[in-house]
């Protein structure tokens, strides 16, 4: 069943431009960037049981790096920009990670939110990065060695889709890897991991950096999609979106992407109907919180009937939160 869903998603993704108009394609592209934010939050939440409310910091840093790259530093290769964005974001993430991983899960939540908000306040005030106006007129760079034109919306959509699937795949690999196993073990019992000889702090920071890199990638893609970067890219709403996507989507990677795209369409629909759509979104958050993530969690419906004990344990590991 899960495999079917993955195939269906891939097919739907590839076929999307054939039955959606340009505007809607843009929405799906945006949804994919949100999916990446969701994935980055998912990684920390499911594997390490650390809910972060500060991923906007990494998304926004990636976005600002992307914006500055074309308008100030004249870089014309999106891959170079991606690499740079990840580097810059990791640099910012390290002190946050070191501080935050010393705290329990609530402290972690609070501090990550606090740091993201502080970055937003900084961006609002710092004229060099545009201040409250942000960076306008961000143009899309070239695609490096690839002979494609990113300025075309459909091409950009496919590029975004490819990057999203690449990240999905990478995170899936990590989850199955020995490193992923270590992270789950840390989540299960930090004390025992230390007693066994593991440097728990270092692993947490590494996981944090991986997560931040995915969020930064999302920021870059988003910046070039809407050709605009603003302090709002660092706002708590971005982080909250990532969280709610993970809570609704559950432990499956692929449902995260689906839920994210649906959420994008939902937000767009609401914002076009009423000025006060944020309040309605608020009600959605309240509803999800009250109804319980686990009940809504989409992946629950998709649990396969027969599976090996190992897969069962991993699934259990993924859903344990």
């Amino acid at each position: 069943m899960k495999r079917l869903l993955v195939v269906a998603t891939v097919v739907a993704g590839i076929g999307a431009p054939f039955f959606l108009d340009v505007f809607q394609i843009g929405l799906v592209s945006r949804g994919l960037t949100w999916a990446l934010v969701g994935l980055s939050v998912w990684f920390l939440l499911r594997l390490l049981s650390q809910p972060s409310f500060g991923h906007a910091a990494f998304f926004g840093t990636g976005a600002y790096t992307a914006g500055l790259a074309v308008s100030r530093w004249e870089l014309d290769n999106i891959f170079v920009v991606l690499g740079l964005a990840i580097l810059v974001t990791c640099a910012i993430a390290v002190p946050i990670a070191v501080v935050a991983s010393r705290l329990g899960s609530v402290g972690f939540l609070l501090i990550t939110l606090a740091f993201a908000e502080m970055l937003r306040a900084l961006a609002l005030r710092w004229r060099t990065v545009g201040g409250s106006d942000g960076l306008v007129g961000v143009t899309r760079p070239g695609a490096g060695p690839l002979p494609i034109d990113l300025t075309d919306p459909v091409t950009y959509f496919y590029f975004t889709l490819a990057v999203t699937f690449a990240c999905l795949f990478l995170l899936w690999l990590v989850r199955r890897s020995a490193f992923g196993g270590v992270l789950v073990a840390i989540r299960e019992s930090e004390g025992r991991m230390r007693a066994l000889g593991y440097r728990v702090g270092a692993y947490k920071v590494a996981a944090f950096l991986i997560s931040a890199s995915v969020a930064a990638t999302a920021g870059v893609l988003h910046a070039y999609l809407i050709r605009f970067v603003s302090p709002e890219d660092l706002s708590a709403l971005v982080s909250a979106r990532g969280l709610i996507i993970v809570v609704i989507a559950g432990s499956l990677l692929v449902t995260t992407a689906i839920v994210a795209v649906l959420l994008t369409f939902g937000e767009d629909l609401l914002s076009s109907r009423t000025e006060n759509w944020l309040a309605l979104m608020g009600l959605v958050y309240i509803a999800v919180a009250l109804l319980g993530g686990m009940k809504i969690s989409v992946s629950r419906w998709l649990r396969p009937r027969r599976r090996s004990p190992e897969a069962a344990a991993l699934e259990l590991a993924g859903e344990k939160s």
Partner: protein
Amino acid sequence: MSFAQIVLQLAIGLSFGLLLFLLASGFTLTFGLAGFVNLTHGAVFMVSAYVATSFSGGGSFVLAVAAAGVTGIVLSILVYAVSRLRWSKLASDELSQVLLTFGLLLVFAEVARVLWEGVPRSLPEPGFVSGSWDVLGVSFPTYRAFMGAVALLIAGALWWVQERTRFGAMVRAGVDDRDMLEATGVSAGPLFLAVFAISGLLAGLAGGIGAPVMGASMGQEFSVLVLAFVVVVLGGTGNLKGAFIASLAVGLADAFGKALLPTFAEFTMMGLVVVVLAWRPQGIFGGVR
């Protein structure tokens, strides 16, 4: 910085810190006692501040502050009521608490935007404390001193309640060990309600008293919330003494940060957090669970 300017920033920082304590203490108590992470705290502050500014048309200052306090109580009780709908589920699930209170935050903020058109507003200082003093060659607004004094008084009252009343003893016991509290026969429900109401009152009063200085504006629901977080993380959960000291520290960091590095004021704050937590991860006085 000249000596006079240092003194000025010191005074500004301390008075702001005292105001911040009112806000942070409510947050740390709800979290310490009920284990509830309440992100709406900043939004409650903001809406209360806006309510206070509605009385600027020749109304009494005291009335404005009182109205702000009442607003705070009402909103906080509303938050408590909504969370009671699924309390058993929310009680141990911080993530759901965060999503719930974030959603409520969005709703409150939107209400403020609609009612006051998203425009920043202010409240004129009451006549009897307007103007400024000349302290060592620098003008220091009298109102800030007044604000600090009132906040200190309220803080004192709060301390007295916590240390000297039976109610306070129950709160302290509950912060220490929630399960034991139920075991001793104290009913948690009314106690939590009281703490929520009090924290709302404090946030509301802070919004009202702070209005002549900070005004009411969109965005405060986050900016103020962040400061409260920093205080709680630095000062330890449910710990009023820690919150007090941390509030002063944050207030000072905020004042000096803004004075010395106007654009990068946030770095001072982030730096403070990093330094303190690197030195003592459990906060100055206690632990965030």
